[in-house]
């Protein structure tokens, strides 16, 4: 399988009060098309920075990030914006949405801005509704964002991230602000999307969530300390997979 995302010698350094803070230190990894990768690590290890840097939201200090064969580290702000709009989807821990738009309008907003297809506004709206139906939140389409639960809102964020049919979906602790039930629901949707072919890279603290992924990368002090690929055994229960992952994590000092 071809690598959809290729990260080579990626470094990210912040300078705060003349003090240099090397957050990412020569990170190298690849993500193949259709993979679902979890990035784990202790707080301050550089997980989110890695996610933002590889998605073009933050600038790399050095190194290379190739997305779909294209080096995105040299792209300008507008080119990166277009890439994120058309080819990438984003889900965040906080379910940020435009306060004055309905749930459906928030979902279709990126589609309206995108010129990827020449679909009509109506067709884009129908696509948004279809996504909502798929994620089981169609009944809140016309609601304001403060009229729905956190789980519904995060599923709406997933719909928004999927509206432009991205090649890759970046999720930064997508279940971090949700209770267990809502968290499970959201994860189920992400797994379904991955099964349908969407590549997902997700930052999480939750081993239960990471256990659903096809690969887990463990990052400490800006370096990938290890990678975990669960054994493909259909007979294994979800709890068993979690236990195996936990064991691996504990070995790494989690």
């Amino acid at each position, binding site marked *: 399988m071809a690598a959809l995302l290729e990260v080579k010698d990626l470094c990210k350094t912040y300078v705060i009060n003349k003090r240099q803070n090397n957050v990412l230190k020569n990170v190298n990894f690849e993500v193949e098309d259709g993979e679902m990768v979890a990035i784990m690590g202790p707080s301050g290890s550089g997980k*989110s920075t890695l996610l*933002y840097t590889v998605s073009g*939201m*933050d600038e790399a200090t050095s190194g290379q990030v190739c997305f779909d064969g294209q080096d995105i580290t040299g792209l300008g*702000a*507008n080119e990166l*914006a*277009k*890439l*994120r*709009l*058309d080819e*990438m*989807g*984003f889900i*965040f821990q*906080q379910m*940020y*949405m*435009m*306060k*004055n*738009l*309905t749930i*459906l*309008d928030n979902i*279709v*907003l*990126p589609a*309206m*801005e*995108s010129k990827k297809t020449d679909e009509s*506004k*109506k067709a*884009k*709206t129908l696509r948004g509704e279809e996504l909502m139906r798929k994620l089981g939140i169609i009944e809140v389409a016309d609601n*304001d964002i*403060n*009229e729905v639960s956190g789980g519904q809102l995060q599923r709406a964020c997933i719909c*928004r*991230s999927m509206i432009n049919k991205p090649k890759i979906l970046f999720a*930064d602790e997508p279940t971090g602000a949700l209770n267990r039930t809502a968290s499970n629901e959201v994860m189920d949707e992400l797994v379904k999307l991955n099964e349908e072919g969407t590549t997902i890279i997700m930052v999480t603290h939750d081993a239960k969530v990471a256990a659903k992924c096809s690969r887990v990368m463990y990052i400490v002090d800006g370096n990938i300390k290890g990678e975990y690929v669960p054994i493909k055994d259909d007979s294994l229960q979800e709890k068993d997979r979690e236990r195996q992952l936990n064991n691996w994590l504990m070995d790494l000092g989690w």
Partner: protein
Amino acid sequence: MLFGVLKREMKRKKTMNIIILLFVVLATMFVASGVNNVITVMNGTDYYLDKANVGDYVIITTSDDKDGSLQRMLETESAVKGYRMERVIYAAHKNISDKDGNELDCKNTLILQSIDESAINFFDKDNNKIESIEKGHIYVAGSFMKKNDLNEGDVIRINHSGVEMTFILDGMAKDALLGSDFMGNTRIILNDEDMEQLRENEMIYNEYQGRICYVDTDDVRAVATAVNQVSNVTFADGRSLIKMCYVMELIVAFIMLILSVCLIIVAVVVLKFSITFTISEEFREIGVMKAIGITNRKIRRLYITKYMLLSVIGAGIGFVGSIPFGNMLLKSVSENMVLGNDSALLINILSVPLVIGIIILFAYLCTAKIKKMSPIDAIRSGQTGERYKKKTVCRIGNSGRMGTAFFMGLNDILSSPRRFVTIIISFCICTLFVLIMVNTTATMKSDKLIYTFGTKSDLYVMDVSDAMEQMGSNTKEGMKQSLDEKADELAGLGMPAEFKAEIQYKYQAFFEGNGFTFTCQQGLNMQMSDYLFTEGVPPQNKYEIAITPQISELTGAKIGDVITINFGEETIECMVTAYFENMNSLGKTVRLHEDAPTDFKYISTILPYQIDFTDNPSEEEVELRKERIKEFYDSEEIMNAAEYCEYCVAVADTMVSVQFLLLAITLIVVLMVTMLMERTFITNEKSQIAILKAIGFKNSVIIKWQVCRFGMVALAAGILAACLSIPMTEICITPIFGMMGATNIDYKIEPLNIFLLYPGIVFAVTVAVAWITAAICTRTIKSSDTANIE
């Protein structure tokens, strides 16, 4: 601890605090100078007339009281408590020239007077009393200097009845009696020795001497009745009329006053918005403080202390700024007047606690919400779950061809109308004022007011000195003949025309036992059908007259009543058949039928000659003929109807400067409001902007979204202001014209200026400022900030 929180609060929201501080400065400046303007304007003319010692009643005669009638009246009339008299010499504009011998342009008759014999006080441009004038030096009215482009130190020549004298101009003199544009005479003040030199000339002594008498009285009406016995009176009226002559100056002052009030409203509205917005932004901090057990009182005290600090600093700066700002506002008004009030500084100082009080009150009211909320309410920014209210109005799917930026902008406005209505009101008030001024100025510069000054003609010849010179010896028939000769001259030049003139006489009149001296107007070569009457039937014969509402109010006479007029040789009982409006003599005029037995013995003044071409030339042709007539008469003062109106109103140019000053102030306010609001919105929407950037929106789209909102708001304010400008001009300006004698004003509306140019300027500035602010503020928000937003 609270002090520490306050200190950090001030530092953390530096920009917001600076903007609020700026608004406090602005509010203090406007409150202080506005209140000062109110008092100065309200008492302006009285202050000036008192300072100049003008008295309660003024009589001007065109003779040196040779028959003693004036002196007799002053001594016998019991209502006269005291009087001051000054001797003057009359001259015409041809008697005064510059150092090269070029005649100087002056309005109506020139009055020469000695400073030593002066019964009133004159003031120089710095409002200092002119105590003495050196021999060979003179002071003239500021408007005269301006009109003739004269400067201090220039040489002025006077050549009167063979007496030739050269003077050095020492500067402008503010003349409380004759300095207003409505009084119209130009007074020249000189040294006593120079004055005596003029009087030594027999011709001047016998023919050109006159008197101005200032009477102190408590019974103006009794003095006015007694003045009927005085001969050769050219002007006799009370202080109220003299005050009214400054109405044009007062218009400008009133406009400044209303502007100040509006700006105070705008500043306070914006201030309230800022405080409310800032406090609502801080609900989370408030929640945290409550959660850890800080009492409501202490939390409120924290915010009130913050705004008190800002208001004290801002009001202090505003107080300092209010002094030059107030002076600047009054400068254009006080060109011809000594304006001011003795308690100006005290008022400025008092405005400081007023502004501080208002701000603390707002802060107190806005923080009242804190008391009612639980910590969780505060943390949830006031959204408890029970008070959900649908906000969204538009649907993106139904937005047609609208771009996303435009849609989001429109949706924001419709979703939070109250927030944007504040801005619309602020912008609308400011724009409306500019538009009212534009309408007023356009009307003053057009021929719309022509019927309030007489009749409409193709051209007006301002120089009537030839007729004025023969005033004493000429007759009505003689002048009629002279007008016909002038018409023949023009016909000889291929411009067939009728020459007309309106003559003002002073006649004694009686109604219901009371005596009056009226200014009566009668046209030569004019018919009653040329005039405009607002009510009744035009006079049909010499036994019928038309009066103005002002005369009706003064005498109590109505249509159908009979007023007895003493025409000298004949006394006629004239029935009032119509009302008309007239801005000459501030509306206190009577219109006589062309057959009324007037006599040049009673002439007061001759209004400009009017030319009506009989071959119906086009407007362009009239303009060409105007130039030819200028050449023919070697005079620049040939005007069309619009120019004549502008000349009569006199203050149109000042109004234009005020209009631009208003526009500048409006643009500054628009700039500040836009900057403040835009910044506030962006601070509030930081998370939304970051997420938009994260999901792939370009910065330009986000800027466009922000700009669209302000553009739409400015557009709405502009349209609203343009639509309101027409009725508001009538409501605000008609009463001012009414004071001058005209209430039926047909305003000149220039649609291009009202609906496009001025709202367009406000719109362009708003969009430009919104664009720059959005570009600066959104640039610092990054898509990766989604990880850091609280």
